[in-house]
């Protein structure tokens, strides 16, 4: 077996939250603690079990060798030998950045799920932090297992398992702790993603059976789910027989792409996102926007781009076109929003378009810019959703027109919102800029027209954010909110780390780019080689 185990670190990151899930359910099952005790205990367990992966993740980032093109921190053993399924986890630079991101965002979301340090602001009993707490915490941890697993799996079967694991807690988190239309949103999210999963599953099976035969653990030649082996034998798929008259690689590519694109989300598969966001409780929106969307684009890079390079070249213009539509169309839709959270949700759609455009360009600038954009969007969009959560907790509505002049009353909150908005609109010095800049610069030589069209979004984005600031914060203070309370410590603990990250990456994006550079270089070489 090539890629022998070198470290179990990733497995610790992966299974600590799972241990938390088990502990919480076991404790609830035994019923030895009273309800309020159990609530506090499960909160503490969740906090601990999401803090551990973050600490390990920082260690991982610090010790990852960015110069190497090999996967690192591998943990590898046979799992289901009759199918040659392996437990195979390991990271390259892109996965390091996303694993750390998911650990960070999960930890922030966990803090945001605590009713602590409330100061003068009050949370009512229906608030998601107050009811069915152990269940909520268990689901939150399970969600983290699914996300982390997806980013570190190098076995396609394992990848698929974690991809599906993530669905279940998300469904319940939206469906139980969500807003007024939670059932509709949860079902829409679940079914939509599941529809994508089906296509992915079919493609997975096709890739498995048309893939190379390698000796398994039992010494017999087997097909393999090993994504690195699949990647190295990418040429095998070119000679596979056509399906329904379409070239094998193309149809498999499309199946996988739709599966991932739903998650990104890509136009026209994006409408589950605003609904899910609007109904989800704040920390869940944070995770949804911060990490879950990146699973889609990560999957494309890991599977479509790496295993089917020829089909990727074939489809690149279409991907760029769809990315452009995402960017511009969603930006205009943002301009029309009245619900603050929906606006932020659509802005995510717009910003994920940059990722698609950059990946489609197949230039170093474009593709590394796309990865950087994934990471920075993972920092900025959680900030945006936390900020919306703050005002919703206090005012119990999110109607942009329903505020006015709040800057006088809540200056610190205004400053945070301003920072997050400007970071999101790609102001240099804040995280959003370099990713966008690299994507544009990488995409320009390949798709001039699409890049120019996409670049018009810098104007529209500025317009919808500044218009929002103007309507919510500027002008005369709306008398209804003359007692509005500024940020409390819980909110500060979630917002300030992200703000610091946004500023740091704004001036030093090389921190992420240095990780992904060699891996992306290798990927591009293989794509352009055919």
């Amino acid at each position, binding site marked *: 077996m090539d890629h022998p185990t070198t470290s179990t670190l990733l497995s610790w990151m992966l299974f600590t939250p799972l241990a938390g899930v088990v502990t919480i359910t076991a404790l609830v099952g035994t019923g030895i603690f009273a309800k309020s005790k159990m609530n506090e205990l499960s909160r503490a367990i969740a906090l601990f079990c999401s803090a551990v992966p973050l600490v390990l993740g920082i260690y991982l980032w610090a010790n990852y060798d960015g110069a190497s093109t090999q996967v690192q921190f591998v943990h590898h053993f046979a799992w289901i030998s009759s199918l040659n399924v392996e437990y195979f986890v390991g990271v390259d630079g892109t996965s390091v950045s996303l694993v750390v991101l998911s650990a960070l965002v999960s930890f922030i979301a966990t803090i945001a799920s605590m009713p602590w340090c409330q100061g003068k602001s009050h949370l009512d009993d229906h608030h998601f932090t107050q009811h069915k707490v152990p269940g909520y915490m268990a689901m939150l941890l399970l969600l983290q297992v699914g996300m982390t697993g997806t980013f570190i799996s190098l076995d396609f079967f394992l990848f698929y398992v974690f991809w599906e694991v993530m669905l279940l807690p998300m469904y319940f988190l939206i469906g139980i702790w969500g807003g007024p239309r939670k059932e509709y949103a949860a079902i829409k999210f679940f079914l939509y993603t599941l529809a994508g999963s089906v296509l992915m599953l079919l493609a997975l099976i096709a890739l498995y059976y048309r893939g190379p035969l390698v000796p398994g653990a039992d010494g017999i030649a087997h097909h393999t789910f090993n994504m690195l082996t699949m990647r190295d034998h990418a040429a095998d798929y070119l000679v596979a027989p056509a399906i329904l008259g379409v070239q094998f690689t193309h149809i498999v590519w499309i199946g996988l792409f739709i599966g991932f694109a739903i998650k990104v989300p890509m136009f026209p598969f994006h409408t589950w996102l605003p609904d899910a966001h609007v109904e989800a409780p704040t920390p869940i929106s944070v995770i949804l926007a911060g990490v879950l969307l990146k699973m889609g684009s990560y999957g494309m890079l890991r599977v479509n781009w790496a295993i089917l390079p020829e089909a990727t070249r074939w489809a690149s213009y279409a991907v760029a076109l769809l990315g452009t539509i995402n960017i511009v169309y969603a930006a*205009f839709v943002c301009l029309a929003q009245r619900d603050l959270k929906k606006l932020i949700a659509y802005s995510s759609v717009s910003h994920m378009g940059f990722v698609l455009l950059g990946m489609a360009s197949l230039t170093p600038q474009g593709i590394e810019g796309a990865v950087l954009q994934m990471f920075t969007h993972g920092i900025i969009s959680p900030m945006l959703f936390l900020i919306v959560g703050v005002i919703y907790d206090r005012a119990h509505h999110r109607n942009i027109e329903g505020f006015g002049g709040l800057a006088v009353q809540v200056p610190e909150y205004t400053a945070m919102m301003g920072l997050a908005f400007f970071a999101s609109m790609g102001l240099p010095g804040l995280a959003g800029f370099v990713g966008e800049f690299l994507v544009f610069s990488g995409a*320009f030589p390949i798709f001039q027209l699409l890049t120019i069209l996409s670049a018009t979004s810098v*104007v529209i984005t500025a317009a919808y954010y500044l218009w929002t600031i103007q309507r919510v914060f500027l002008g005369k203070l709306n008398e209804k909110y003359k007692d509005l309370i500024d940020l409390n410590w819980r909110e500060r603990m979630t917002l300030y780390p992200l703000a610091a990250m946004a500023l740091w990456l704004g001036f030093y994006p090389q921190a992420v780019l240095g990780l992904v*550079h060699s891996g992306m270089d290798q990927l591009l070489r293989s794509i352009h080689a055919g």
Partner: protein
Amino acid sequence: MPTPVTSANWLWLIPAFPALGALLNAALGLRLQRKFGKNIVHSIAVGAMVASTTVAWLAFARMFGLEAEERFLRDLLWPMAHVGSLELNFAFALDPLSMVMVLVITNVATLIHIYSTGYMHDEPAYWRFFMWLNLFVFAMLLLVMGDNFAVMFFGWEGVGLCSYGLISFWYTDLEKAKAGMKAFVVNRFGDFGFVIGLFLLFWTLAGHWSATSKFSSDTRVSGRIPGSATLLPAQEHGIKIGPTIDFRELKDQLNPEHNKAGTPEDVGIAQHLTHETIWGVPVIFLICLFLFVGATGKSAQIPLYVWLPDAMAGPTPVSALIHAATMVTAGVYMVARLNFLFALSPMAMGVVATVGCLTAIFAATIGFFQYDIKKVLAYSTVSQLGFMFIGVGTGAYWAGVFHLFTHAFFKACLFLGSGSVIMGCHHEQDMRKMGGLWKKMPRTAWTYLLACMAIAGMPWMSGFYSKDEILGKAYASGHLALPGLGATPWLGPTIWAVGLVAAFGTAYYMFRSFYMTFTGEYRGGTDHHDAPASAHHDAHGHHAHEPHESPAQMTLVLIALAAAAFGALFLGIPEAWTGHEPLFAKWLEPSLPAAAHIPFSETPKSVELGLMALSVLIGLCGWGLAHVLYFNNKSTVPARLLAQFPRVHKVIFNKYYVDEFYDAIIIRPALVLKEICFWIDRNIIDGLVNLVGLIVRIFANIDGAIDKYLVDGLVNFTGFAVMESGRRIRRLQTGHIQNYLYGALGGALVFVVLNYVVLK
């Protein structure tokens, strides 16, 4: 020979001090102000500026000690993004051009900080003001000190942000908040152009555009993957060839000295840029055009000037610093910085000069009829920026930059003077309610007068030397071209003539503002002032309605700026008088390699002197006209003229309805488009999703019905049938033996008959 680099790893201190000041005031300002008063707030801000200015002067001393061609200080801080062939570093550099800018910015900004301690004295959000002001200086320094396009763009956008924050400083007034937003969004149009121009440049340096606009990497500098750095760096004669965003590397590649066709030193990049086409257009023209779109945004030129007049909603020191002396000159600076690029395309030069010229005259005419003293100055700034673009557009780079330099002093002086007047008149900005302030505010009046003379081009003030050099060079420009027209030798003299008319206008409306404000009788103070701004930040002299002179920290700044507006003239005394190059031109020479190669036509000395005399005369005429019409505000001619031509006045007073025009062709369509997009999203895209859901549900129901009624129905029917038949057949079981015997008999008979029938 590539530009030698002198490392100076302390340059970062220049922007770091204001950044630190901004950070301190942002984090602690409010608390400090509450606890220790306002002194501590402005001590931080002014202290940061003084420190920064000191380092800037040290840098100047360091640079002054170097040989002219070695004047390039660089401070490489950290790599920001090294991706393929793109090398983006966070690095600062100073060459003579950026040195001039840094000195202007730090010194003028320090003065304006000091002035603000007086002007903003009664402002409750004092700390916020100084936070933004410090942050602005930081961003502006980034803009001019950036070693590459990216750091410049950091500053470029940063100043936009600060401008937004300061224009909407009094944000409780929604109109002011809107002005800030307008400034930012309009500037974003420019930024869009800037970025596209940059990409065009970067990629053209990296390879070729085919006839179908497909890009192919130049194998000399790159591998087969577009944008990868496989074979970098290629060097020729010690000069790095290929894609770059560093100004220094770009300058070396494009320096005319390194691009003389036919010589062995020829690196061929200039030729490559001029011969390459994309979309059927010479790529060099497109690069310059897109970059210039960026410049029109920041420097308020046609068509993107509309934000600047509205930007006067900000506090007056902001108007002086950002919207007159520094930020709005960024576009001029950028064109001058890229002189070697613009010089390659006579067509781009023609466009820059023409836009500058049109803006100069257009804004000047609007300035004629404004009554708000700050609006007059705003349009005058737009107009003067037009002059600067005439300078850098025709290739008189040093003259354009010199006008930027002198303008920084006299326009800051004018704005701060107007601020002093506005404060003295208790937040009155309408000149019709001023008048007679000469006696009440003598220091303000004197400095305002001197600055008016400077802007009007009186030969004893610096403005004359810069403006006249620009117009003189425009007259001698036969080398410009325009798209669609080809070479246009007539363009230079035309620009000169129009510029002269604009100069006349400038003199007229500036002295008009002076006379309306300072001469005659005081016309204000009768009605109770009720300007919205006053309620917010006016705490002084609610009872003293008499105008009064401003405190010393304000008037001393005015005097310093007026003195600078005078003293600057010694740097630009024309060659025709002294026989040697002006000091300012000589200083800038290393930054402007293209300047020596611009084919200006030779003008005889007599003509040159004649042109100067003419321009002084024109300035005097403008002054004279203003004197006749507005001195002591006695003349009734202006009122009668207005009555005679109400329509002309109305059109110009309403700024030719350009705002309304943009509203109709850009904003409204965008607002409609957003509704269309959202409608599509809700009803078509999401409609489809819900439709799929609905179809599935209908199928499911049909399926369910089939299951329930057909499949399960069959099952149930079987059961039912068995039960029912059983129930019915049960009746046979009567318990009477004779019935059974009848049955047996009947059965036997049936069998007999069947046996008989079948076997037969």
